[in-house]
């Protein structure tokens, strides 16, 4: 079965999600999208599927307390499947401003039927440059939405000064150093920057280029989301890494929102690519290193209440001895 790409569109109330959605739908790209809107009805479907709000988050009984999924989302994708999913080029899920993106994203990995029919392409978060600082101070959801993003649309640039923009961008980068960030007004962005990103496609992850690494933590509240990244030119010993990352995600998966790594494995001509949403991890050999290319391993964690030193020590324990 062809897997239909799914774009999850998040962002706080008033950030410009709906404007972006309308832009995606109205541009002449010749594609047909099924759009799953806030109310968890679907529009853009021949026979519209519109049902009431019942944001049904439930835990999977698999021993992992962070493995929550969205029952309503499974239902609506099943509804699309009943109509024949192959007539769509993509699915766009617009979440409510207050939605936790984790159960939304996890649904695409945890539900067998959804996983077979679709693939999560990217989490796109629209951020209001003017108001995000306030939101980050009082709303963990706003922080989670940034932390989860593969693509950040930093919107309403016309409402902020250059200095304000710099501060906002720096703040965003402490939460999420690797998302691709675009500056926009009225959510005006090239749709190629939003659609078909393959953010969860291990074959397409070549490198992680963290931005503004861990500079100037502006902790606006306790329990703030932070990101840590570790880099090494020493090769990683596969067995040790697998054991350590497995244990780390098992023990701290609830606090680790997302993690990603591109690793230089000892004696391997290929990159090893790894990524996880909470405890749900996926890894595979990636593209080969080119001749003469500098083989650097990079690992990023985004989460709450993480201890940098412990993670750093753990990662260093996976490296071969310095030459």
């Amino acid at each position: 079965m062809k897997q239909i790409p799914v774009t999850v569109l998040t962002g706080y109330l008033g950030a410009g999600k709906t404007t972006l959605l309308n832009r995606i739908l109205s541009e002449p790209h010749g594609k047909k999208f099924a759009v799953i809107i806030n109310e968890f009805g679907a529009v853009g479907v021949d026979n519209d599927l519109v049902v009431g709000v019942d944001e049904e988050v439930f835990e999977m009984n698999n021993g992992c307390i962070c493995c929550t999924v969205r029952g309503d989302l499974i239902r609506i994708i099943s509804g699309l499947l009943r109509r024949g999913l192959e007539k769509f080029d993509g699915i766009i899920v617009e979440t409510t401003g207050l939605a936790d993106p984790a159960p939304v994203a996890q649904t695409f990995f945890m539900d067998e039927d959804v996983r077979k029919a679709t693939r999560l392409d990217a989490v796109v978060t629209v951020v209001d440059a003017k108001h995000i600082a306030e939101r980050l101070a009082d709303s963990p959801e706003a922080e989670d939405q940034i932390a989860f993003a593969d693509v950040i649309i930093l919107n309403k640039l016309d409402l902020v000064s250059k200095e304000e923009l710099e501060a906002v961008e720096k703040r965003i980068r402490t939460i999420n150093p690797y998302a691709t960030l675009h500056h926009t007004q009225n959510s005006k962005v090239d749709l190629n920057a939003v659609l078909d990103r393959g953010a969860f496609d291990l074959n397409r992850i070549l490198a992680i280029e963290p931005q503004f690494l861990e500079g100037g933590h502006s902790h606006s509240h306790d329990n703030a989301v932070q990101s840590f990244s570790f880099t090494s030119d020493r090769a990683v010993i596969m067995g040790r890494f697998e054991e350590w990352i497995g244990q780390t995600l098992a023990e701290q998966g609830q606090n680790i929102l997302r993690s990603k790594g591109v690793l230089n494995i000892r004696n391997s001509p290929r990159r090893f690519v790894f990524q996880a949403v909470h405890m749900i991890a996926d890894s595979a050999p990636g593209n080969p290193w080119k001749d003469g290319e500098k083989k650097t391993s990079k690992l990023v964690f985004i989460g709450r209440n993480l201890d940098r030193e412990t993670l750093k020590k753990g990662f260093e324990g996976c490296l071969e001895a310095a030459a």
Partner: protein
Amino acid sequence: MDTQRKLKAVGYTFDAPVNALAFAEDGSAYAFGLGNGRVHIVRGEERKTIEAHSGAVPTVCGYGDGFLTLSDDGTLKHIAADGSLKDIAKFKGVWTERMAVHKNGSFAVAVGRDVHLWTKMDAEPRILSPHNGTVNDVYFAPDGRGLAAAHRDGVTLWAWPHFEPQPMVLPWKGAHLSVTVSADKRWIVSAMQEGALHMWNVALKRDYQMRGYFGKPLSMAWSPDKKWLATSGAETVIVWPFDKAGPEGREPLQLGWSNSTLVTHVAAHPEAPVLAAGFEDGAVVMIDLIDKKAFSATAPSGHAVTALAFAPAGDSLIAGTANGGGLHMSFME
């Protein structure tokens, strides 16, 4: 029934996925509910396509010599033997995907977090509420004097005629997606999101979790002697023993087929110890419960079997697929 006998098959190609199918209770016709709201009815030599709904048709039930059809657009309709269409109910802004019919003429529909129960066609429905979350499935007790409703964190059992005392709630954390009740009403079995069955023995007040399914065991069917419960969701048909003290501590039968795809649907013959299983690759297989032998009824088409049903007389089987294929197989004498 000798499963080695020849089959005579008639194929159908529809313009939308087959969502559901059923025989009329008197066996006089069969119907395919499609993803575009149409219902295709075959009655003897006559074929009719009825524009019944504007949404998809996830449940079709035989009702006397006609059919009840439920759409996820919120409409519930009756299609009479002459093809005439009657509105039974219209619900707005709620999930309506599952319905059950009892041979005494009662029918029940899961409507969002409620269940609407009709004791006969033109009666006012009784609303059974509350449930802990959207009702995912409903199933009549075989004696027609009770109903099980599956939902988040458990199953609720309603009993009548008196509806007293309060409904019994069988709690178990997680999403219960499909439910069935044993003939003696001692066992309630639900299929769960994480590829498991939950089984309650309500007589002994004990419950068990049966894990290890690769997919969701949504389709369940009781053998005609009620001693076996066949389930989908694995690469073989997993059949649990319900004779004696039930399945606790006993191995299920794993009946199958050298096939690496999942069983998506199971159906039990109404009289003979024979099961039918539909697979994700489109294969339909018949399995004899006595000698455990399986034979192919139809080869893989590459498109998942989405529904299966035996005729009430047991002389034929219908199947539908995700790409709009329909099949009627008669067992030749």
